[in-house]
């Protein structure tokens, strides 16, 4: 499985992480809009790490299967956690100096969004998936591919 793990310790790591996400998405065949959605989502999530937990990690994974291309980003930290996840997911809620659009906005950008948080561990997973563009199927049993379609 293709994977990139980026430590998030300083502001510049936000840029490194979102660029890594974009690179992976591009490599897998996602278009510019999906690349930008993923990069922006990673930017939001890793900024939360810097602002609230100081340090954490961003793991970008190729989670594609035979029928879909899928890129997943998992952003994890061991900070104080989000006291009220439901509230944090509401538009306009912010405890920091922000628009409070980061989490709900990111959710709107991606196909899957999963968040779990408790003191000492916050983990947000986002992924974007598209049907495999025709002609790019590799190392796949042709018959299985057509049945799945």
């Amino acid at each position, binding site marked *: 499985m293709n994977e990139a793990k980026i430590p998030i310790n300083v502001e510049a790591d936000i840029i490194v992480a979102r660029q890594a996400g*974009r690179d992976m998405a591009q490599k897998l065949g996602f278009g510019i809009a999906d690349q*930008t959605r993923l*990069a922006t989502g990673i930017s939001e999530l890793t900024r939360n790490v810097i602002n609230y937990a100081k340090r954490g990690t961003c793991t970008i994974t190729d989670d594609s299967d035979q029928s879909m291309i899928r890129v997943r980003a998992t952003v994890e930290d061991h900070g104080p956690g989000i006291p009220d996840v439901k509230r944090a997911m509401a538009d306009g809620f912010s405890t920091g100096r*922000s*628009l*409070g*659009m980061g989490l709900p*906005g990111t959710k*709107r950008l991606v196909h899957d969004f999963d968040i779990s948080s408790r003191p000492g561990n916050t983990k947000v997973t986002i992924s974007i998936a598209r049907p495999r563009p025709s002609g790019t199927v590799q190392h796949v049993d042709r018959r299985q591919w057509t049945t799945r379609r």
Partner: protein
Amino acid sequence: MKVPILRLRDILLTSIQVDLTDREALDFQSDVLRMVTKTEAKGVVIDITAMDVVDSFMARVLNETAAMVRVLGAEAVVCGMQPAVALTLIEMGRELVGVETTLNLDQALDKIQRLISERVGTAESVSRSEEGDGAPENGDAYEHPSLAEQEAPSFTEEG
């Protein structure tokens, strides 16, 4: 990485060519404001053609910079947003874009000239108004100051 700010007659021209860290984005903001005051510019054009990611933080910085420039007594236009960036910002939340925008630099120069001429005669009352803390008057703690500012009645209505 410092973003260069060029003066062209009474306009300041600046183009963000690299990914800015949050700190660099805020430095850029204060550089713009300092330059507006120093050069007595009437308008600022911020070109973001090269930016492939504008997240909610960067959107806020751009909105706020434009609002601050207006409070100082000048005008601001952002130009050249990439289609994928526009798409992402609107998907995240329509309210993230709160600044005058144009497709390209050409249109930005036209627009800023128009905004400047519209302001003529009201500039004094604007520059006299104090910066304040930008706190929204409606007491909604979650509403961001820059949004409140942009929704406030236009200064031109006073004169």
